[in-house]
């Protein structure tokens, strides 16, 4: 069964990659399995300078989901290039860097700095992090800001740019069109939905940041709907994510119109989530009558 997918800048042996923020920079899960099995790897967000992130607690459990407010903790783009990314060099698996920032300038600075890395194949432009006071989600909910940051990062970067969209919007297609109009090579969707959980004993939000991003199977129907809507409107490569835990889920995302998928929260439940999904994918695809990954993409669309 042919699992390969060809996307701008990315030749994937299979469509499954860990999602940003759920895989660190690869070291830890490389103790569990051979990272060569992965279609690609999206690493943790990079900002201009090192960031401490938010106070703890940073995570909470919800029904079929979790909240996180890590707050973009990372050692800064320079250190990521010198200390983290080289570890992934020996693997035959393309690496996607996740670019974050508080200002357009910071995004551009991170993207420009990443030009010197030999270890990455593409950028994921994170305009949708709900867990930082500045930047992040505000770029992801305002089409004009999204356009501006995408345009400038595209100009600055030597790599294809996948813009990661926020689901915290009324109209996802408007956001998708805005960034594709100014040259986004692809989309990555969805990031987390902003949520909160309150600790009854402490009479306060569990997460120190108060709100956090909701991920996991709880949000899968929202991800599927948004990808479906964007696929109806635009012919652009989509890396789909949001609640994927099984190979069946992957097929559902492909049917909705994703060209490849990322697995986030499921890694925490099962560190072998990605390789197990990849192993089962051929059987599940053929069970539903598909002869390859490419054969399934967008096939869930009903034309009226």
């Amino acid at each position: 069964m042919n699992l390969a997918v060809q996307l701008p800048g990315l030749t994937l042996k299979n469509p499954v990659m860990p999602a940003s923020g759920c895989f660190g920079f690869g070291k830890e899960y490389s103790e569990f399995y051979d990272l060569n099995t992965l279609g690609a790897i999206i690493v943790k967000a990079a900002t201009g300078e090192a960031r401490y992130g938010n106070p703890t607690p940073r995570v909470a459990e919800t029904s079929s989901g979790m909240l996180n407010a890590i707050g973009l903790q990372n050692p800064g783009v320079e250190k990521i290039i010198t200390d983290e990314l080289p570890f992934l060099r020996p693997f035959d698996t393309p690496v996607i860097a996740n670019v974050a920032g508080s200002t357009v300038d910071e995004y551009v600075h991170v993207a420009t700095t990443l030009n010197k890395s030999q270890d990455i194949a593409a950028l994921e432009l994170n305009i949708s992090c709900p867990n930082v006071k500045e930047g992040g989600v505000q770029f992801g909910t305002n089409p004009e800001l999204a356009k501006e940051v995408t345009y400038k990062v595209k100009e600055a970067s030597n790599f294809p740019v996948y813009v990661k969209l926020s689901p915290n919007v009324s109209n996802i297609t408007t956001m998708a069109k805005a960034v594709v109009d100014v040259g986004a090579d692809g989309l990555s969707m969805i990031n987390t939905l902003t949520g909160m959980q309150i600790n009854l004993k402490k009479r306060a939000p569990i997460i120190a940041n108060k709100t956090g991003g909701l991920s996991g199977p709880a949000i899968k129907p929202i991800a599927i709907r948004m990808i479906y809507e964007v696929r109806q409107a635009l012919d652009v490569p989509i890396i789909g994510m949001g609640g994927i835990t099984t190979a069946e889920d992957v097929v559902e995302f492909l049917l909705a119109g994703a060209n490849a998928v990322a697995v986030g929260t499921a890694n925490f439940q099962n560190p072998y989530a990605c390789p197990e999904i990849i192993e089962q994918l051929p059987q599940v695809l053929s069970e539903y009558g598909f002869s390859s990954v490419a054969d399934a993409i967008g096939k869930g669309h009903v034309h009226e």
Partner: protein
Amino acid sequence: MITKKRLEIISHLQIAEATFEVTVKSDLAVELKPGQFVHILVPGHMLRRPISIANVDREQKTFTMIFKIFGEGTKKLSECRSGDYLDIILPCGSHYPIEELELEHALLVGGGIGVPPLYYLGQQLKEKGVKVTSVLGFQGKSHVFYEEKFQQLGDTYIATNDGTYGKKGFVTDIIKELDQPMDYYFSCGPTPMLQAVTTLLANEKGYISLEERMGCGVGTCYACVVPLKNDPTKNKKICKDGPVFYANEVLLG
């Protein structure tokens, strides 16, 4: 090496109020070190539950955990039975580095669910010929467990918050009255206790074990951090760099 296994429960006992001792079979038991923890899947729950290793039987290839019902996850774990299987990531985190330490006399200071990892530590210390003194704090008489087992390791003092057993008050009240020399202290328990202990024993060398809400439990998600004392703009991961830290290394919130 860290991995994930389906492990059979071979004994499941209630040993105090809402407190359970669960022993599972695993070839990896021999590799587990005191202070490390395991990360347990609770069916129907998104996040795993971290539980410390309370004891290891190298011959039987089993290890024991002791936990208290706190919320839904530990409630479900309390309802398991011998013969059930648990999906466990192990071994997780750092350990008390006793192999590197010059030790003659160790003080163990545990509070509540911080007591279990100290038992395995105490066992290993005793095996090495180290003198062990234990100071254990519990909510009340019905919550006390493993007192006799600790007594077999050395002098053991109990404090209870409500005074229904041992000394009324905190572990620090007992420590103040101990005037034996010690090389190192090892402490695990709720953060306020750790703060009190590290403050009281500021001039002693010691190791502490921390708790925090975890996502991955293996170091990838950055959920479980603690700031460094000498540079609070930097932090360490409790699940990977910890849970055991040198007492002066981290800033207790």
